[in-house]
Every structure is written in C-alpha cells, then in structure tokens.
C-alpha cells in the first residue's frame, strides 16, 4: 500500500521544473566574455579599472558556479532521499539541460545548449576558482607591464570560453568555445609579441592544436551525419544517449572499427592536440614563452585539461560496446597514448634546465596520467586527477613565477639556489605543491588521485604494461621534481643579484592553492570516495573498510616506495650540492649520451622539422609555383586574350567603324567639292548651263508631245 502510494507520488512528480540557475547557466561564460569585450575598448593602461572589471566578472561567475554546484548537491540529496525511501537506486547524476535550436535546414536542425550535471558543476567551480586566484596573482605579477588591459581582456575571454566549453551540451557549441580557447591561448602565448621566440611559440601552439582540431571537426561532422544531432543529452535523443549509441555501434567504418569507435578516436585526436599528448605535445613546452600566470592558468590547470574534460564528456561514446568490466578499442588507444606520454615527457623533464620547462613537461606527463586514468578506470578516476592536478600545478607555476620575479626574471635553475632562506613562503608553498605532484603518501591530494589511476591500471585486463609505465613515470616525477627543488631552493645562491620575496598579492594565492592541494585529497580516499560517487551519481558513506580492498594496501605501499626512491635518488645526486652553472649535471656525468638525448627532448621537434615542416615548405613552394605559373599563367593568358580582343575591337572601331564614317564624310566632302565647282562664279558658265537646259527641255517637250 505504502509502496503503491510512493510510486504514485513519483509518477506525479515527473520531471521537476527547471531551476533558475539551470536556465541562467549561460551567464557563467557570458559575463567574462562581455567583460573581455568591454576591456578591449579601454585604453591602456587603466590598471585598476581593468583588473577590477576582470576580477569582478570572474567573481560573479564563481558565485554563479557555486550556486550551480549547490543546486546539484541539493538535487543529489533530494534524489538520494527519495531513493532511500523508495529503495530504488536513482542515478543522481542528472543531466539538466537547456537546448536551443540554432539553425534549421529542412527537417534537420543544429542545436546549441548547456548542461548542468555533477561533472560540469565540478569543473565550473574549479575553473572559476583557480582562474580567480590567478587573476588576483596577475595584478601583482603584470603590474609593471604596459599592456595590462590587453592582458586582462585576453584572460577574461579565455575564462569565458573555457567556462563555455565546460557547460556545452552541444558538440558544436563546445567546438566553438574550444576554438576560442585556442585563440586566446595563441594571443596569450604571444603576449610579448615583440620577442620572436614568443611569436614563433604562439604560432606553433596554434598550428599544432589545429591539427588535432581538424580531426575533432571530422569526428563532429561524422557524428552529425550518423546520429542526426550534436546535442549530447536531449532526454533520450542525444548523440551519446543509448539510442544513438546503438545506431553508431552498428555502423561499420572500415578497418574493423565501428562508427562509434572511429568517431571516438577522431574526437580523441582533438584532445591529443589540446592536451599535449604525444605526438602533438611539442607546443606545450614552447608555450612557456608566455607570462607565468598564463602558463599557470592555461597550460597547467584549465585549457590543457579541456582535452581530458572532452573525453570525460563524451565518455559514453568511448565506452560504447564495452562488455562488463572490459574495454573498448577507443579506450585502449587512449590508455596507451596516455601512458606513453606520461613516461616520455617525464624522461625529457629530467634533463631540462629552465624552471618553467620542467613544469611544462611535467604537465604533459600528468596529462598522460589523466588520459590513462580515463581509459583505465573511467570518468571519475581521470577527473579526480584533473582536479587535484589543477590546483597543485597552478600552485607550482605560480610559485615558479614568484621565484622568477624574485630572481629578477632569471629562469635557469642552475643560476638559482638557496632560496629557501630568502623566500620562505614561496618555498613552503612550492614544497607542498611538489610533494603533491610526486604523490607523497597520505597527506597530499596527488597521492590519492595518482593512486586511483594506478589502482585502475592494476586491474586493467588487456595488459599490465600501462601500470608498469605509470609506476616508472611516478619514479621519474619524484626524481626530477627533487632535482628542481634542490637546484632552486637548496644549496647556495648562484645568481648575480640577490633575490627577494614576492609581495602578498603573489604569495596569498599560493597559500590558498597550497591549502587545496592538501585538502582535496580528502574527497578521493578509498575510505570516502565522495568525488567518484558524486560523478557516478551514487550514494557514499565514510567507511574505513574501503582500504580493505584486495591489493589496495599493497599498491599504496608500492607507490610510497617508488616516491621515496625517487626523492632519495634525487637528494643523493642533487641535494644541497649546487654545482656551478657551467659544470655538467651529475646525471650527465654518469650517463652523457642518455643525458644528451633527454636534454634535446628526444629529437621530436627535429623530426617534425625534417619531415612535416620540410614537406610543408616543399608544398608551399609547389603551391607558389602553381600559383604563379599555372594559375597566374591562366590569368595572364586570359588577360592576354582580353588584350587581343580589345586590340581587335579597337582596330575594328578605328578602321571599320570610324574609317567608314570618316570615309563617308570624306566622300561627302569630295562630293560637295565637286558640286561646288558648279558654282564657278562665272556668268558664262551659268549661261551655258541655262542654254543647255533649255535645249534639253525643248527636246523633251517636243518629244513628249509627238503623237
């Protein structure tokens, strides 16, 4: 009786009316974009106004994001409450969407829309919060730059576009915001465009990501052709909802792949470009030419994470056709690419000397971890590492910025040293970030997120190789971070001028980020996997028995050992030693050839220069020749033909038309002249003519009157 009553109630509830925050969700990206437009019209350098506008707008967006997050929590609580009463496990991960029809062609229509679900709520809060901290940091870091307003204009545009990527429910809208994000990345990398290196790096970033975006667009078009819509969630009719997925799975796309797999791989190609996976990673280290806040925000925390977020968004497509507990082709590819990138980048990071470049390769490596996490364990595993990484990587970059600022724009770690005493706040926060990145056990969020990935890797059926690669990557991560910290903060100062601590506007965001680098670990522990449950839409409770899963403790011990091993080797080789800048590195002394390869970034850039760029140059020359000789020749030929025709017409006009007319007039003239001779002016001539005419008339008269 009671169950019947509640089922009746459930039926009458139906879909709850859409909350205001969902309808107005579009304001979250719109406000920063509008601010960017306003800032574009301001004259430089209205520092206080532009900073105020940018920070104010992003604060508004943060506020709205928090409201959205709270709404999702409430909804989740409500659904959990109902499920507890009804003993029916609801999926609390509701996708609340608003879809608008944009273009209609016949019966097909291209829709745009936004979605609010746990995944997007979490990303919204992360992006706007980290973004706001970095905005505040930038007011101090860029205070002496004369293009202050332009900087905040681009930053606001980026923030708006990134938030747009996060809330998009339509792949088309997502792609549009994706492109704007790429544009702002280009603008910000090349912010100091007078530096040739910066301009070249911006161009490289744009072109490399473009390659990925091309495949992405192909995937979108294919998906639209097959599924008829680009909207992701549309109450059952969306492109990644079961009906459409079933259709995509049944389509065959050649090479033994189904359409779902092929489209998934194409979309992954876009993520490879944007998130700097091998082989399209080459732009990320060069992107360090941009200002440090830019590196922190875009190339560590948010934009490069967009690729990971994209895969998480279209995860149903990637996962389509998987048997229970098994993997699909798309996810396998993602896993291998991610794992390989993780190791590859970590190796190169070992031998770099620029403080930001080490962090850049570290970012590439960690993005590989995220991708592998998505492929191995699903959305929650990858996304958790994304969230934690955003905080501690932003922290590391901002800390590097503080170091650079304090060392008077020096970026070579061999010319730093002993900054622990001079910049204590920076050292403390940097150390927290570094330990989080290495995955120092228990206290730091990085440990829990990386462990989540390793746990999924251990359980991965197709192969154990990714697990081994990821463990090796963790070892390398600990090693190179120790090297970096030893060079920068330990030992003695090797620079020219003495360094100084940074002002509060720089150190306070560092402290806030450091707090989160530690605190976020709490929502991902096996004892209380709140994050995973939140994304999956399940209920969860704090339970220490979570640690009792078979193999979990072993894994935790293994990763602890690995981290300490890396820290130990690093400390042994580099701790407090501070070799002079000209002396070769300790590792270089030990293994000079390997060092050389690693330092030269394993020759990927050179390979591209020799093949792709060389081909491109050749193709450009061929096109130029074609353009000048063949098409230009055609055009010249047409021009010549026209000229010929024009000359012919002119000839006709002059000689035939004009000529005949002139001739006619001439004849008239001559005729007139001839006729004029009749008027001789002499009387006798007239008399003669008279007489002749009379005679002729007489003849005529006589003749005519003859009978």
């Amino acid at each position, binding site marked *: 009786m009671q169950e019947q009553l509640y089922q009746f109630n459930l039926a009458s509830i139906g879909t709850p009316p859409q909350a205001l925050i969902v309808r107005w969700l579009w304001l979250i990206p719109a406000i920063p974009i509008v601010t960017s437009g306003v800032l574009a019209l301001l004259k430089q350098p209205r520092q206080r106004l532009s900073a105020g506008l940018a920070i104010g707008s992003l604060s508004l967006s943060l506020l709205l994001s928090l409201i959205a997050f709270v709404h999702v929590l409430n909804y989740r609580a409500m659904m959990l409450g109902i499920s507890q009463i009804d003993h029916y496990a609801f999926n609390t991960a509701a996708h609340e969407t608003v879809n608008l029809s944009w273009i209609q062609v016949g019966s097909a229509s291209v829709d745009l829309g936004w979605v609010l679900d746990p995944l997007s709520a979490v990303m919204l809060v992360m992006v706007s919060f980290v973004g706001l901290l970095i905005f505040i940091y930038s007011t101090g870091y860029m205070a002496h730059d004369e293009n202050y307003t332009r900087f905040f204009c681009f930053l606001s545009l980026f923030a708006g576009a990134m938030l747009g990527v996060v809330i998009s429910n339509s792949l088309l809208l997502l792609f549009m915001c994706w492109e704007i994000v790429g544009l702002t990345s280009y603008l910000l990398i090349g912010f100091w465009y007078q530096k040739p290196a910066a301009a070249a790096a911006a161009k490289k970033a744009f072109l490399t990501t473009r390659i990925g975006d091309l495949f992405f667009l192909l995937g979108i078009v294919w998906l639209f052709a097959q599924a008829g819509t680009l909207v992701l969630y549309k109450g059952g009719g969306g492109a990644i909802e079961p009906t459409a997925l079933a259709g995509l799975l049944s389509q065959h796309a050649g090479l033994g792949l189904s359409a779902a797999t092929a489209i998934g791989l194409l979309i992954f190609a876009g993520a490879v470009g944007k998130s700097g996976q091998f082989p399209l990673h080459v732009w990320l280290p060069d992107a360090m030419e941009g200002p440090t806040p830019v590196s922190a925000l875009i190339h560590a925390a948010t934009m490069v994470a967009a690729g990971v977020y994209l895969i998480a968004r279209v995860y149903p497509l990637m996962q389509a056709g998987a048997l229970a507990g098994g993997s699909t082709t798309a996810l396998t590819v993602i896993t291998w690419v991610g794992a390989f990138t993780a190791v590859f980048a970590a190796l190169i990071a070992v031998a770099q000397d620029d403080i930001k470049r080490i962090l850049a390769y570290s970012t590439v490596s960690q993005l590989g971890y995220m991708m592998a996490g998505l492929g191995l364990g699903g959305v929650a595993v990858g996304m958790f590492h994304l969230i934690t990484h955003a905080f501690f990587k932003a922290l590391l970059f901002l800390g590097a910025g503080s170091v650079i600022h304090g060392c008077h724009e020096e970026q070579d770690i061999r010319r730093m040293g002993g900054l622990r005493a001079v910049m204590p706040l920076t050292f403390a926060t940097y150390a927290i970030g570094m330990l989080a990145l290495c995955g120092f056990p228990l206290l730091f969020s990085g440990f829990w997120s990386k462990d989540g990935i390793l746990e999924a890797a251990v359980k991965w059926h197709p192969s154990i190789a990714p697990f081994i690669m990821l463990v090796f990557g963790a070892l390398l991560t600990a090693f190179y971070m120790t090297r970096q910290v030893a060079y920068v903060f330990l030992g003695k100062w090797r620079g020219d001028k003495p360094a100084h601590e940074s002002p509060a506007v720089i150190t306070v965001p560092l402290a806030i980020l450091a707090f989160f680098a530690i605190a976020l670990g709490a929502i991902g522990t096996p004892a209380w996997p709140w994050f995973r449950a939140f994304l999956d839409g399940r209920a969860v409770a704090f339970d220490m028995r979570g640690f009792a899963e078979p193999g979990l403790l072993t894994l935790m011990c293994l990763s602890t050992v690995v981290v300490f091993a890396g820290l130990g080797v690093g400390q042994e080789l580099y701790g407090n030693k501070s070799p002079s800048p000209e002396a070769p590195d300790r590792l270089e002394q030990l293994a000079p050839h390997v060092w050389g390869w690693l330092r030269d970034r394993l020759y990927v850039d050179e390979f591209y220069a020799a093949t792709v760029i060389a081909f491109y140059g050749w193709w450009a020359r061929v096109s130029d020749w074609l353009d000048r000789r063949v098409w230009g020749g055609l055009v010249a030929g047409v021009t010549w033909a026209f000229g010929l025709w024009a000359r012919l017409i002119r000839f006709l006009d002059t000689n035939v038309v004009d000529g005949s007319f002139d001739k006619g007039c001439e004849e008239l003239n001559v005729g007139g002249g001839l006729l004029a001779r009749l008027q001789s002016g002499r009387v*006798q001539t007239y008399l*003669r003519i008279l*007489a002749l005419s*009379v*005679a002729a008339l*007489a*003849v005529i008269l006589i003749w005519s009157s003859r009978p």
Partner: protein
Amino acid sequence: MSFVFYILATLTVAGALAAVLLKNTVHCALALTVAFAGLALLFLNLDAQFAGFAQILVYIGAVAILVVFAILLTKGSDTPADGVFSRTWLAGLAIAAAVFAVLGWAVIQTANLLPNSAPTPTVSVQQIGQALVGRYVLPLEIVAVLLTAAMIGAVIIAMHEKDGAPK
C-alpha cells in the same frame, strides 16, 4: 523664197557673225549695227513697217550707240593679251550648236504645217496707236514705268560713288 529675202538674210547673218567673231570690240559694235539694219530691212520685208522703223530708231539709234559708249568707257578697244575667246569656247560653241540644232530641227519637222502664203496685212499707224492706248494700254503704262525705272536704275548704278570710289 524671194531673192530679196536671201540677200537680207545673208546681210543680217553676216553682220551677226562679224559682231561675234571680230577681235576689236568697236568693230563688233559696228557689225552689230549692220545686223540691226539687216533686221530692220527684214521687218520691212515682212510688211511690219512700224516695227522696222522702231527697230532703226531704238536699236541702231540708241542701243548701238550705247554699246559704243560703253566700249569706249571701259577701254574695250584694247585687245586682251590672251585672246578674246574664253578658254572653254568650244563648250559654249557646242551648246549654241545644240540649241540651233534643236530649233532648226523643230522648224524643219513642222515645216509642212506652216502656211505657204498669206495675204499682205494692211496695218496703219493709226491702228497701232489705237491699239496701244486701247487694247494694250496696260503693257504701255507698264513699259513706261519700266523705262523710268530703268533710267533711274542705270543712272544710279553707273554713278560715281561719293566717298572716293577707286578709279
């Protein structure tokens, strides 16, 4: 055709020819006078006495003298250097010949229609005078006006110009 007619005709034609062909202009005028005389005699032969005498009075007495005066006033007696005939005299001659041919042919062709003889008309001067003031009074008056006008005109035309006319 009587014998008188032939002589008179010959005289007239000869005078006319001379008037046209002679080089000295005064001789031409005198020959013209002969031609006028011959014509007057021809009129008399045709029983047109009044016309004949009028011819003598007017033509020979006035016109011929006038011509001579004009010749003398215009130094016409000087023979021009390049001949008295126009350069294209042959064309003029041909045209005159053509005209003569037409007229002569017209006459010859209709010669059989012309009366052979006619009674001599008896015309008295009184009749002529009466006709003049009777039937032909209008032409008379007009001719009077004409003569007056011609006289005035001739005087005006031939007058010396007041404001230093070129001599």
